């Protein structure tokens, strides 16, 4: 079910362990991870729509320790300064709360926030039917309250849920999942600790019922076998996640 809440809700500050080559310590001999998951198991997710009153649509998502809130405003008239456009504009902005990480963040947009904003835009652009609202802008504002790994995929998932909540017409919901590679192992939906010592990463956002990939990024070295396995794992996870998102939307209506 969509509302399987994460059990631990303590205010324990995040540990940042940067131990190198520590896939051994992150994965127990029995093949379970620090938080008890198996390698190909996603974190418990909590999704909720309608988290912000003032917004046309909004959503809150909690994946393990990663907590994100997204509000959608509009469609509303584009700013006067902007040139005429016969398709709608999508304005995406991702920011991190100053207390999101273990080190206090600075106010103002950092490089990471800018990159995430761009990547969020590209992940959603292909899904939203922009031609149905010419001359107008839809604002998507995402705020990462707690950064616990896999922040971008959670933001993308949550944003598409918020767009649906706002009644913006989309071809399909966009769900996103990340995956970390360690030596020979692939870990789905990695936590921050795992991400800090990963050998490579893969992030995939897709519209599952159209079988269409809207955003993809990969780092590290991937031989062919590993790459196809990783893509398959991500696609599977995206499918399941999309199912959860649909359930949540049905509940909220």
């Amino acid at each position, binding site marked *: 079910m969509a509302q399987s809440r994460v059990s631990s809700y303590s205010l324990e500050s995040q540990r*940042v362990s*940067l131990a*190198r*080559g520590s896939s051994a310590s992150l994965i127990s001999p029995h093949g379970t991870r620090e938080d008890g998951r198996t390698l190909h198991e996603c974190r418990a997710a909590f999704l909720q729509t309608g988290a912000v009153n003032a917004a046309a649509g909004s959503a809150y998502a909690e994946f393990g320790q990663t907590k994100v809130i997204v509000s959608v405003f509009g469609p509303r008239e584009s700013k006067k300064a902007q040139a005429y456009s016969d398709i709608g504009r999508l304005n995406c902005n991702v920011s991190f709360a100053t207390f999101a990480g273990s080190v206090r963040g600075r106010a103002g947009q950092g*490089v990471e926030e*800018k*990159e995430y904003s*761009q990547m969020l*835009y*590209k992940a959603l*652009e*292909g*899904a939203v039917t922009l031609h149905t609202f010419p001359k107008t802008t839809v604002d998507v504002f995402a705020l990462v309250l707690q950064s616990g790994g896999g922040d971008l995929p959670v933001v993308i998932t949550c944003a598409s849920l918020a767009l649906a909540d706002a009644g913006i017409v989309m*071809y399909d919901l966009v769900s996103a999942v990340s995956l*970390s*590679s360690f030596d020979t192992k692939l870990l789905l939906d990695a936590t921050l600790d795992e*991400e*800090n*010592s*990963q*050998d*490579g*990463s893969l992030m995939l956002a*897709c*519209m599952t019922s*159209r*079988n*269409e*990939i*809207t*955003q*993809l*990024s*990969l*780092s*590290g*070295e*991937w*031989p*062919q076998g590993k*790459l*196809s396995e990783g*893509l398959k794992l991500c*696609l599977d996870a995206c499918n399941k996640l999309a199912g959860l998102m649909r359930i949540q939307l049905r509940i909220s209506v």
Partner: protein
Amino acid sequence: MVGLSLAEKKYVEGGIAQGLRSDGRGLHDFRTFSVELAIIPQANGSARVRLGATDVIASVKAELGRPLSGRPNQGRVEINIECSPTAAPQFEGRGGEELSLELSRALHRSLLGGGSGAGAAIDLSALSVIEGKLCWNLFIDGLVLSSDGNLLDVLAIAIKAALSNTGIPKVEVTSAAAAEQEANFEISDNPDDFSQFDTSRVPVIITLTKVGRTYIIDATEEEESQMSSAVSIAVNSLGHVCGITKRGGAGLDTSVLLDMISVSKEVSKSLLATVDAEIMAAESRNGNFFILVLVSSHYFVHVASPLFKSQVQAWLG
């Protein structure tokens, strides 16, 4: 951005749909390119690459610094790309920022591997001098001088060339200090005394631009203006994929993506061979160039490749 009329757009699109491109290339052909090395004397390594009308410079500067606390035995590498307004008016002021960021992040992803430093194009632990205390930090700067499409692929080639041209001075540790003490070291001022990187693992990036129903390689700016989406895939000499970045908004069918990956691997083989050959040719050209100018003036010693500087100083006696 190029302003194309409707007829021109149809011409580009229709041509690609029939497997024809306005410069006569096949859909999966690269334009020819040229490499120049050691063009910036104050950098540790530099290169200029011209592909068609696209023209970029990459420089590598090395500075001694402290390693990050979490990575005591690795050096840092920073990649920064700048799009100069001389290339296009829309790069002026903050206009080029978005593109610059996209390019830098894509290169970062493709060249520097995952969080642990595994899969990085150059061995980050080779940059370490004294574990936890001293390491070389590499600053890789790319500058776009003129743009006619396919910036990312050209920048990757330029960085590969600049890295193969980079010489890092030898550092001699004079006292192996205890954990708390400051380390004493000397940087060798003998220009003959430098180490070079193994750049054989630095990948090339191949951008596949989707126009209509087919995709093309090495798109010009005209062709890029008609793209629906593009995927940049970094492939190294082992045929392993080292980074993928998706650009452009439209969605992409899963099967098309898998197809693109296998095409990029195929293309990477010949591209890597051409890049290596061009770098080799540039290296030998540099040597000749140097000997010629030396006859007329000592001043040019500074212009020459650091690789040859030592030889010449020996000749000068």
